[in-house]
């Protein structure tokens, strides 16, 4: 009696299971499915870009494209793809996360052929409480008596931009009171790091912490401010005199598109993401375009141009010899900045 009842309950539970089995009936030639593995921040932009691409592809070939989307932190996404997550396209936050896939033998083509492999740009900026009560004007104020929020450069590739922006600005002579060389810049960075109160996992979490009321100033990205303001938050944004240009890569994953037979549509997606139509959507979401045509449009439109002010001294990752050097010599386990953070923490 009791046994039968237990079996009944068991059968009831098990009967639920078949619903979970995936229905993959997408083998008709009219439908093609691709998987996009992206970092979390540009999700809103892709939500508009994907329908536009589907319409474009339908008109061009008659095929219906289903785009499966996954959004996770850039590094986690890159490791997942390297570990067997079969994404056809990766759109990540930093170049080194794509390089990992090149090293793993998954990306074999010259992914830097168009626009150097990038799909969006942004800049590192500072956000303070509304009205800027502490009158923070530029990088040098971050070495004063303020609480600073920035993500952890050890976990977030994107966070490394922040450290590089501060360090680079000092080394290029745009932070007053420090020698214009590696030593002076290191001295400034050390002072700045002492004021960091929270090292969050990634850029978004960092600005969320700031929104929860922690800290006086957040080192963040221009596009984060757009997203935050769209959600009803207010900050005072400070554009430093000197800062770094953030470049976000996109690439087709050769090994997986060849396995899925989706190379054509995946490559078309990447080209589309860099086209004027998609780039305008990115601009709407707070990213700076890589497409020349859209760049010109932004510059010509007074209202838009005001949202993306020109930076007096804008430098790129090449300032430090590119990501491969930066990853190893500055942020690696034996890297200078890793050591610096440990040293500051140990005091």
């Amino acid at each position: 009696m009791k046994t039968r009842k237990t079996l009944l309950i068991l059968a009831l539970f098990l009967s639920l299971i078949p619903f979970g089995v995936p229905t993959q009936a997408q083998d008709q030639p009219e439908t093609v499915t691709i998987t996009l593995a992206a970092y979390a921040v540009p999700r809103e932009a892709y939500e508009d870009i994907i329908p536009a691409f589907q319409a474009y592809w339908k008109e061009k070939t008659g095929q219906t494209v289903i785009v499966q989307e996954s959004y996770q932190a850039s590094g986690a996404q890159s490791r997942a793809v390297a570990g067997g997550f079969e994404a056809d396209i990766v759109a990540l936050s930093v170049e080194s996360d794509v390089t990992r896939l090149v090293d793993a033998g998954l990306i074999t083509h010259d992914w830097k052929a168009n626009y150097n492999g990038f799909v969006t740009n942004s800049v590192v900026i500072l956000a303070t409480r509304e009205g800027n009560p502490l009158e923070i004007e530029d990088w040098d104020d971050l070495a004063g008596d303020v609480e600073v929020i920035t993500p952890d450069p050890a976990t977030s590739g994107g966070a490394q931009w922040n450290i590089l922006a501060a360090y680079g600005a000092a080394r290029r002579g745009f932070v007053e009171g420090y020698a214009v060389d590696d030593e002076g810049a290191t001295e400034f960075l050390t002072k700045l790091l002492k004021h960091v109160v929270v090292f969050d996992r990634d850029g978004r979490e960092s600005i969320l912490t700031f929104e929860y009321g922690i800290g006086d100033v957040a080192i963040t990205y221009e596009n984060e401010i757009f997203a935050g303001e769209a959600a009803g938050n207010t900050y005072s944004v400070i554009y430093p005199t000197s800062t770094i240009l953030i470049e976000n890569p996109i690439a087709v994953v050769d090994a997986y598109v060849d396995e899925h037979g989706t190379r054509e549509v995946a490559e078309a997606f990447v080209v589309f993401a860099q086209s004027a139509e998609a780039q305008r959507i990115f601009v709407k979401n707070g990213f700076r375009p890589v497409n020349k045509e859209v760049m010109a449009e932004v510059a010509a439109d007074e209202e838009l141009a005001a949202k993306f002010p020109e930076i007096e001294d804008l430098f790129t990752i090449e300032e430090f010899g590119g990501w491969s050097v930066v990853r190893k010599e500055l942020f690696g386990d034996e890297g200078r900045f890793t050591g610096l953070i440990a040293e500051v923490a140990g005091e």
Partner: protein
Amino acid sequence: MREIGPKNPLQILLILLVLAYAAALIIAPIYAISDGAIERGWQPIKDTLQDDGVQHALRITFEFSIIATLLNTVFGVIIAWVLARQRFYGRTLVNALVDIPFVFSPVIAGYTMIVLFGRNGWLEPTTFAIVFAYPGIILAKTFVALPFVSREVGPVLESLPIEPEEAAYTLGASRWSTFWQIVMPGIWVGVIYGVVLTLARSLGEFGAVAVVSGGIEGKTETATMYVYRALHDRNRIGAYSISLVLGAVSVLILLVMSLLKWRLDRQRG
């Protein structure tokens, strides 16, 4: 132990102390989430629950958690039995293994599965995918919630007198019916709490699942991954309402199982 009404002020004070502690620890946060979830009324919650991706996420989360719970319940009772009633070489080692899933960093647990079953992994499957697919999610949930049933049932088994079992068996009852008639009624409460804790833990698991699932919306994204994404997207209502759904389900399961126990007790008289 017999239930009594509190008789003196000291006992009432004790009850109040416990209630106050629980209120500060649990009720206040729950209130905070509920408040956050309904801050713009019911419509946004309804919209969240009607979203296809959310529904799919909830469905796979429940189904896979139930599978994980079933596995862990059957094996958990066996493990508890073996540890409580058998003496053998290496028992201490086996006993110590049971708690490991708690100390195992979930991120590392997920990563371990990729080393085993991922691309170029030690045991890379050839016919169907394990990681970044459904089996990986089930495995992750099973792993993190493994200890509960055995740890709940173990102490109860140890506190049960062994004579009735032996008597029943000697009198000719089969092992199976001895277990159901004599042992099961004694350990029921332990099993119930074990099942509820297992289910709750598998529902709420995030770290390991996030590493092995790939998080494709509408496919391998679980409810907790949705919550994480919603928090990131500043969609607090979405995050809180789905969390509350997960919490409500485990409360419900506990009530249903308590009812089941009550009926069983009554049947036995």
